[in-house]
């Protein structure tokens, strides 16, 4: 199913879609662009290549309350949270879409499935938006992602000649386009041929990297690589393929709620045990965990490197310690940029 809508008419589309359920899309929030729920007057920014924070929030929310509890005397009552409503996520770029597929492997395909994630995923219609211009930090070409195309999305959208072209790729996508039928015109005369977008190419040698890393846990290169790390969690929070979480209670003896929220392997308390023993006590162990997980552990289990080249860690790390540096350190070759 192919449809087209003029850009001027997009505000009507947003309004119509959000009347049927929450609609999330890239919104300009002061100096940054973030996926936010549409509301009247929101400044939609479809030009921005990458949002500051990835859309994983829609499926693995930074905070999700999944039960309430009530205690009365010796009794404990557990009340599960209500199921989430169907939503539309609009404007996901191909790198972020690939990242969601990486998360699916952990949260849906690997037994036991995580129902909280799975329901959100099933209830969300994802509209991918192809890139027209790469961000200076993008390097998804290194991961064989074509930023101009997004196979696998429910709907793939392209910004072309003042219009938005929409092509449904799944039944969910078709349903969505049908819902907005009144606003959309037939797009069968339009060219949906994905163009080609070139991102920066670090010339990373990824083939064989996971195998190569297997024996480099004790490599002295880690002693150097971690040094500039400040020990903050920016890289993990802006990473579309990071998925660690914490489970916490909020409340008092009589009642409260339990939620899960994002957590980061970069924090000291992440692995600290009740007795005080910490298997990953320092920045070196934690940096190694993060990069080994992306480049060796995850690939060993799921057959692919857990990075999509979105460039967020290159942009956001306050000290420019990013995954490209890690890959280069451990065998990926580099093309000098400056």
């Amino acid at each position, binding site marked *: 199913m192919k449809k087209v809508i003029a850009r001027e008419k997009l505000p009507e589309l947003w309004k119509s879609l959000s009347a049927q359920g929450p609609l999330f899309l890239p919104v300009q929030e002061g100096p940054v662009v973030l996926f936010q729920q549409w509301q009247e007057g929101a400044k939609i920014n479809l030009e921005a290549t990458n949002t500051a924070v990835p859309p994983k929030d829609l499926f693995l929310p930074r905070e999700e309350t*999944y*039960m309430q*509890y009530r*205690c009365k005397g*010796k*009794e*404990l*009552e*557990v009340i*599960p949270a209500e199921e989430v409503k169907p939503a539309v996520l609009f404007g996901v770029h191909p790198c972020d879409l690939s990242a969601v597929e990486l998360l699916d492997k*952990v*949260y849906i395909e*690997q037994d*036991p*499935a*995580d*129902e*909280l994630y*799975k*329901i959100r995923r099933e209830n969300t219609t994802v509209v991918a938006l192809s890139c027209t211009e790469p961000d200076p930090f993008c390097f998804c070409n290194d991961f064989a992602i074509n930023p101009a195309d997004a196979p696998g999305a429910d709907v793939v959208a392209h910004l072309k000649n003042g219009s938005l072209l929409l092509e449904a790729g799944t039944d969910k996508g078709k349903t969505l386009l049908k819902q907005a039928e009144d606003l959309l015109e037939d797009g069968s005369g339009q060219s949906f041929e994905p163009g080609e977008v070139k991102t920066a190419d670090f010339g990373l040698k990824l083939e064989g990297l996971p195998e190569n890393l297997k024996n480099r*846990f004790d490599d002295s290169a880690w002693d150097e690589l971690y040094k500039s790390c400040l020990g903050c969690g920016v890289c993990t929070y802006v990473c579309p393929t990071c*998925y*660690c*979480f*914490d*489970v*916490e*209670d*909020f*409340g*008092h*003896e009589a009642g*409260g709620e*339990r939620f*899960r929220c994002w*957590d980061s*392997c970069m924090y000291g308390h*992440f*692995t*600290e*045990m*009740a*007795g005080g*023993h910490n*298997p*990953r006590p320092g920045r070196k*162990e934690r940096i190694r*965990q993060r990069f*080994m*997980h992306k480049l*060796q*552990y995850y690939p*060993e*289990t799921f057959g692919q490197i857990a990075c999509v080249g979105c460039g967020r860690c290159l942009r956001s790390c306050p000290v420019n310690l990013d995954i490209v540096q890690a890959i280069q350190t451990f065998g990926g070759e580099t093309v000098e940029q400056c």
Partner: protein
Amino acid sequence: MSSVNVLLPQQATILDITEETPDIKTLRVVGKDGLPFDFMPGQCAMLSIPPLGEAIFSITSSPTCRECLEFSIKDVGKVSGALHSVVPGQQIGIRGPYGNGFPVDEMKGKDLLFIGGGIGLAPLRSLISYCFDHREDYGHIDIVYGARSPADLIRKGEVKESWAEEPDTDVHLTVDAEFPDWDGNVGFVPTYVEELGFKPENKIAITCGPPIMIKFVLQALDKLKFSPDQVITTLEMRMKCGVGKCGRCNLGPVYVCKDGPVFTLEELNALPAEY
């Protein structure tokens, strides 16, 4: 369709509490209709006391016990501390079972050597009871158990009386230093294991205890010529989900909560030594 959120605890009730040592208590816990779930020796469960949260504990009882689950818990943190102040009849949250459990089928027909230290007897106890309940499946059983002092030995009655009475079974107790009224062995567990001079033939050694004890037990077993695939141990890591997702107990390609906590030494040697 009603879906099941794996993180959602079910209700369980404390039947009774036994004080084992000054800082270890055994809780007997029952679900709404008997056992909250089926499990295998070595598996764990997540117990919760809101608003303090959840923590993971190994199940001390054997699956052959159908009345309740038992947990021997040492007071070391927030949740374990709270579990020390529960009263009979109180409800707590429980979910599980988590982890792989001991390879009870692969152990069939073998002689077994259990080596436990302090609270480390908790997961072993599940397996030991299971083996006694399937006595004909297993060969000779040796149990080496030690603690800092006689007061720190858990399940003293059971260990000294019932276990020692089992056919084809030897129980060897030890404490770290001399104590009045203690007529058993004095010395650290690893040393005692070496002194007892166990033969590795057709034997599997299963050990659990404080990390430092495990370290030296492994050395002792190596000296006694046990090969890494004959040695089984359990790992302890911080865990939040229990289902291999939250990331805390990730070691190389495995998640201890899901792929462990039971590993042979051979498996362990292939993992990054971050535990």
